[in-house]
């Protein structure tokens, strides 16, 4: 009984920390995982009185691993709130507006959060339902991962080609007739991809140091610069008028429900795929899912994106036991904490069973808490001066970068921001910036 109680306590604490990391833009869950890993022995020492009640050190390490998993699930639910409410540009002048920002500008910010929570929760249910099929498809006897691994370079190249060729933005700088604008759009997408890739190759040789001794992953300033800061700066420059937000429960008709179900399914499968292939992120996964899904509304794009995000977070934990690969900072930390017993028979390893409890419990808690926090945000949102909120967020991200990665990290952030501005100013998809990971990985497989 005590062990179950401890699981609940660590899970709730993880979800609460996930709310904080999710709500604070720039604070990535991987950084929290690295910090937790470095203090894990202190936590074990703190919990040592539990040894007298039959709780082993190994179980405490599982609790810490489960705590990190709960943080990551909660983070994947709650990060939709700042994504929706902060960084929206002026829709009249901006070339590309994220779907959640578009709803915010119509006063439907809470609806965007509710749709995202629906997508995330649905993804957890889909991943759970697919757990055993995945085990036998990805692991033996079908061993899909081994097949993919042998042709990994081709899989990655196919994804890159698909991403670039499905770019729909028309660039009319050299004329507005025929195929030329579409072709220029694709060429510019390729240019952003290559530029991001060169950036990736350069930064992976960088030796960053935190001035206060924290882990200094170079991807933190890089991704914050490519995706976060340009969106915020764009919002700051364009000064959007944000209307008062409507707070209505999410009600969907039959067609919308069916559409959401398809979005959750495609998003979840894309999320599982993301957790299998190195270098893919939820942004790339969403492009793949949207291509599979074809035409869809802004609402369904939000559901799909959230489903990809949470399915990937869920699946990386399962993949750790099936393919024995850590595809995220959190699973890297988990792998360092507990013994990973391969899931190569029908029976599930005990470690995975415990972590599944955390995944399910944190998913349920996060769903309701996201809706609550979303309502709270939407209610109080108009009270906060929007431009000041954006400036505060920018300062916060820069401060985190300096704390984690030092001055050199700030330089990486600035360079990444200049590349991250290209999709915004030219209107192509921001996911092309994922060349930062994909090109170094493709070169690795060559």
């Amino acid at each position, binding site marked *: 009984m005590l062990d179950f109680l401890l699981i609940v306590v660590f899970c709730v604490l993880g979800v609460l920390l996930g709310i904080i990391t999710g709500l604070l833009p720039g604070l990535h869950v991987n950084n929290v995982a*690295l910090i937790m*890993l*470095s203090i894990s*022995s202190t936590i074990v020492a703190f919990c040592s009185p539990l040894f007298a009640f039959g709780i082993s050190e190994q179980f405490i390490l599982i609790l810490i691993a489960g705590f990190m998993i709960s943080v990551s699930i909660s983070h994947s639910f709650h990060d939709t709130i700042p994504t929706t409410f902060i960084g929206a540009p002026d829709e009249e002048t901006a070339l590309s507006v994220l779907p959640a920002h578009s709803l915010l500008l119509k006063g439907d910010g809470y609806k965007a959060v509710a749709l995202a929570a629906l997508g995330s929760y649905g993804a957890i249910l889909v991943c759970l339902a697919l757990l055993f099929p995945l085990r036998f498809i990805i692991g033996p006897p079908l061993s899909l*991962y081994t097949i993919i*691994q042998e042709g990994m370079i081709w899989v990655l190249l196919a994804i890159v080609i698909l991403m670039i060729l499905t770019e729909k933005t028309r660039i009319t700088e050299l004329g507005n007739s025929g195929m030329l604008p579409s072709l220029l759009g694709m060429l510019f997408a390729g240019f952003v991809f290559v*530029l991001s890739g*060169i*950036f990736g190759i*350069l*930064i992976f*040789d*960088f*030796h*960053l*140091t*935190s001035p206060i001794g*924290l*882990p*200094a*992953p170079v991807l933190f300033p890089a991704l914050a610069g490519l995706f976060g800061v340009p969106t915020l700066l764009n919002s700051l420059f364009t000064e959007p008028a944000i209307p008062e937000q409507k707070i209505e429960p999410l009600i969907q008709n039959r067609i919308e429900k069916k559409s959401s179900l398809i979005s959750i399914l495609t998003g979840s499968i894309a999320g599982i795929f993301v957790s299998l292939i190195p270098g893919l992120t939820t942004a790339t996964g969403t492009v793949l899912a949207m291509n599979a899904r074809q035409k869809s509304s802004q609402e369904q794009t939000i559901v799909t994106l959230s489903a990809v995000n949470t399915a990937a977070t869920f699946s990386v934990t399962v993949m750790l036991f099936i*393919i*024995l*690969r850590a595809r995220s900072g959190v699973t*890297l930390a988990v*792998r*360092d904490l507990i013994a990973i017993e*391969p899931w190569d028979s029908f029976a599930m390893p005990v470690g995975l069973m415990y972590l599944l409890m955390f995944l399910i419990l944190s998913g349920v808690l996060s769903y309701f808490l996201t809706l609550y926090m979303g309502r709270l945000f939407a209610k109080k949102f108009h009270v906060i001066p929007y431009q000041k909120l954006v400036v505060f967020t920018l300062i916060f991200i820069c401060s985190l970068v300096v704390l984690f990665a030092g001055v*050199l990290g700030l*330089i*990486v952030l*600035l*360079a990444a921001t*200049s*590349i991250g*501005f*290209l999709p915004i*100013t*030219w209107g192509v998809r921001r996911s092309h910036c994922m060349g930062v990971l994909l090109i170094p990985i493709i070169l*690795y497989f060559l």
Partner: protein
Amino acid sequence: MKFKYLIILIAIGSLVALYFLSLISQPVLVPLSLLQTYNGQQVIVQGVVTDYRTITYGSQLITIRETQNSTKSVVLYIEGEIPIEYGDTIQATGEVQQYKNQWEIVVNNPQLIVILQKWHDLSFPLWQLALHPENYLDTTVNITGIATQLFDSSFTLTSMDGKYSIEVAYQSSCPHQFLKGDTVAVGARFIYDATTCRFFLKATEATHGIWKRGG
């Protein structure tokens, strides 16, 4: 100039600036005894391979020991495989991490491992092995000496001055063309047998062997 054009130039310019910065921002070569102070950072380490094995899905674990006057060792976790042998001196660039209270270096790319010296390129006399066995334990060595006593699948290797000797066990599949009294070079793994409390050389792999030397 419009911002949309200017930002292209700024992005390219920032990459050029990063390139020059990357030239001066390289990981440092760290002694294995100081790894704990570089937790989470990229470092360069050097050492002699004392153990290596392939784990699931093609990752490799290599244990290296510091080359000079130290028994400190560290495990390298490599995403991929490289062809190495016991006794090779290698250099690795990777991130320092703690795994089950042990420090390890995570090397994301096998290309970040450089073989500085193959074990057979470094030949040395038996007395050197006798004076500093801890520097060579569990590595493959290339030792020169005189074959003295011969047995079915082993012989005694004695130093030129006759002061030191060691047993060499070999398999018939290993190349071995020599007679009693010949000066030979032995490529074999240097092992300590705890049950008999003695060191010996074991030539069992395809790259090992006993070769006759002139003089």
